[in-house]
């Protein structure tokens, strides 16, 4: 064939092929990716939203008081449970969401399913079980971004996992497609139609490129047991041996059937913090109030990079240390660090904001990519009055997701405010309100003329977001003025962020409203075969 290997045609052909792959791997699952990205970005403020959605709760000042209160509550409520689980809160948490596993009667099957309502409770700042409105708070957005909703988690995680792989391919091909990545990155042309959208897409993508690469790859890593189990299959006939090595547990002890009071937890917390090298995040008690009781303390995920935090177990009666998790090997630490990087729990306020901004950049990257696809093709439509079905579908899906999903999330927050407090299954009600609302918005996007739909829905989103802190101000004791005066920057920050996002979307709606496409300066001519609209500037 006589093709010049690494210059000229072959490199251009390679870039062209990767550019096409980039478009399709980004577009086909782009809408799901957008929802995952936006929900995941919101999930960085999970604890803040947990507090924001429960305005009845007081701010936590002494986490240790919450833990002792939790133990007292569980001693009264479930003294002979099989095990108790007590998360140790921080001053930013809503409280300690404790749960317990009741004794299994002989012959009765163990009740499965986490989070059963009658075996969990929220312990508040004063150590008492709280009566806040029933809601899933910020935890819902976190769960949604990999478990989705209304479907078994197995399917959801496979869908999200495949989408993540498509995204990884999109990012890698996006990088490879550039001939001059720096020039493309630093170029922002305004008012130039498709070129401006391309610049915006490039900017949001390359700006936070380290983050996007990291978050996508580590996202796959968090699901790796399910997505890529074959290495385990090759090496183990019994996979529990691997899990025992990666997630070491204290040896199980049989219940002694002798009632003995539990040793006080507070001194153990301090001892564990010293031995583990960081604050305790999790307290587990097996066989409470029994002679064979065990207390396991696990280091907080917020205090180190790796998500595989070490544990230490104490005898529940004497308080003596009986077991310590063995030091993990390099590969386990590496994998744990990747999960930790994805979750971003290790970071302080500054890092948390960095992750949030990068997540917004990523959401803009996906959204601008989706819109760019339609903008590019609209400029090449042979008959603009009757675009082909595929084009129209992408256009409507873009509106339904890019405008619609953030509206849905805001409706969830509104449902949290407006649904009656005593409502049956209120937490599910908030979520259903979110999806019903999304469905209505989506239907609207399908029938309304796209230009108008964009302006109206972005405007609606802006209004809904801006109204939330206003509602808090007039209807709740946790309005912006009160929280700032109290120095409660978690809640104040949440309200300010909602307002800021609202302002941003209002600006976007205004820009779309003012947009007047330049009159088509050329009659539609035969597009040259080698034209490559993905070629960098000029």
């Amino acid at each position, binding site marked *: 064939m006589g093709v010049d290997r690494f210059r000229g045609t072959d490199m251009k052909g390679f870039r062209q092929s990767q550019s096409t792959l980039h478009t399709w791997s980004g577009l086909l699952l782009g809408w799901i990716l957008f929802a995952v990205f936006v929900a995941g970005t919101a999930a960085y403020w999970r604890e803040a939203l947990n507090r924001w959605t429960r305005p009845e709760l007081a701010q936590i000042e002494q986490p240790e008081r919450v833990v002792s209160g939790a133990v007292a509550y569980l001693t009264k409520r479930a003294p002979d449970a099989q095990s108790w689980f007590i998360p140790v809160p921080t001053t930013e948490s809503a409280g300690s969401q404790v749960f317990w596993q009741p004794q299994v009667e002989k012959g009765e099957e163990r009740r499965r399913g986490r989070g059963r309502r009658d075996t969990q409770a929220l312990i508040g700042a004063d150590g008492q079980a709280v009566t806040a409105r029933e809601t899933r708070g910020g935890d819902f957005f976190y769960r949604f971004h990999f478990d989705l909703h209304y479907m078994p988690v197995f399917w959801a995680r496979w869908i999200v996992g495949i989408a993540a792989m498509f995204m990884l391919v999109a990012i890698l091909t996006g990088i490879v497609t550039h001939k001059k990545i720096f020039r493309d990155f630093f170029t922002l042309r305004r008012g130039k139609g498709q070129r401006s959208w391309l610049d915006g897409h490039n900017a949001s993508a390359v700006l936070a490129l380290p983050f996007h690469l990291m978050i996508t*790859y580590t996202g796959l890593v968090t699901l790796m047991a399910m997505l890529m189990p074959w290495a385990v299959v*090759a090496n183990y006939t019994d996979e529990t041996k691997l899990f025992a090595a990666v997630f070491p547990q204290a040896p199980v002890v049989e219940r002694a059937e002798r009632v003995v009071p539990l040793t006080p937890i507070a001194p153990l917390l301090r001892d564990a913090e010293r031995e583990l090298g960081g604050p305790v995040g999790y307290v587990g008690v097996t066989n409470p109030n029994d002679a064979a009781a065990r207390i396991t303390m696990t280091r907080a995920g917020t205090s180190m990079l790796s998500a595989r935090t070490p544990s230490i177990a104490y005898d529940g009666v004497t308080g003596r240390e009986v077991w310590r998790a063995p030091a993990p*090997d390099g590969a386990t630490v590496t994998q744990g660090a990747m999960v930790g990087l994805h979750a971003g729990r290790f970071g302080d306020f500054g890092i948390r904001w960095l992750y949030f901004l990068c997540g917004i950049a990523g959401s803009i990257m996906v959204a601008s990519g989706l819109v760019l696809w339609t903008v590019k093709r609209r400029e090449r439509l042979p008959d603009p009055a009757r675009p082909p079905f595929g084009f129209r579908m992408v256009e409507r899906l873009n509106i339904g997701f890019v405008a619609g999903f953030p509206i849905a999330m805001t409706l969830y927050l509104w449902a949290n405010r407006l649904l009656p407090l005593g409502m049956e299954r209120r937490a599910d009600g908030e979520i259903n309100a979110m999806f019903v609302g999304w469905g209505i918005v989506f239907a609207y996007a399908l029938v309304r003329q796209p230009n108008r739909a964009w302006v109206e829905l972005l405007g609606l989103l802006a209004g809904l977001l801006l109204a939330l802190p206003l509602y808090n101000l007039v209807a709740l004791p946790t309005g912006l003025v009160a929280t700032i005066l109290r120095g409660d920057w978690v809640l104040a920050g949440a309200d300010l962020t909602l307002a800021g996002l609202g302002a941003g979307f209002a600006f976007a709606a205004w820009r779309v409203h003012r947009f007047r496409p330049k009159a088509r300066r050329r009659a539609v001519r035969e597009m040259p075969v080698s034209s490559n609209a993905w070629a960098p500037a000029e």
Partner: protein
Amino acid sequence: MTSADRATDVRWRRHGDNLLRLIAAVPGGYAVASLWAMALARILPGDRVAATITATLIAFVVCAVAVMWAYAARSGWRALWTLTIAGGIGGAIAWASIASGGRI
């Protein structure tokens, strides 16, 4: 053959090429990554846990690269047979290692 027939012929050939690339990329890429995850898990040095985890971490990169290769290759057929060979080598290494025992 008229020029219209030739145009149709070209279009079908392009569809066929795209289909081959799609097969090479999606089930093919995953298969190559999985087979090499097994191979690497068997042959990487270090203890079993480390090799298993490292092999899995590498497999995701292999999958992405395989997908990119499926579209960079000069033709759909080339994409398919090169990836088949790549997967086959990984599979053969894994099978040989498992058959000779030692880890499982």
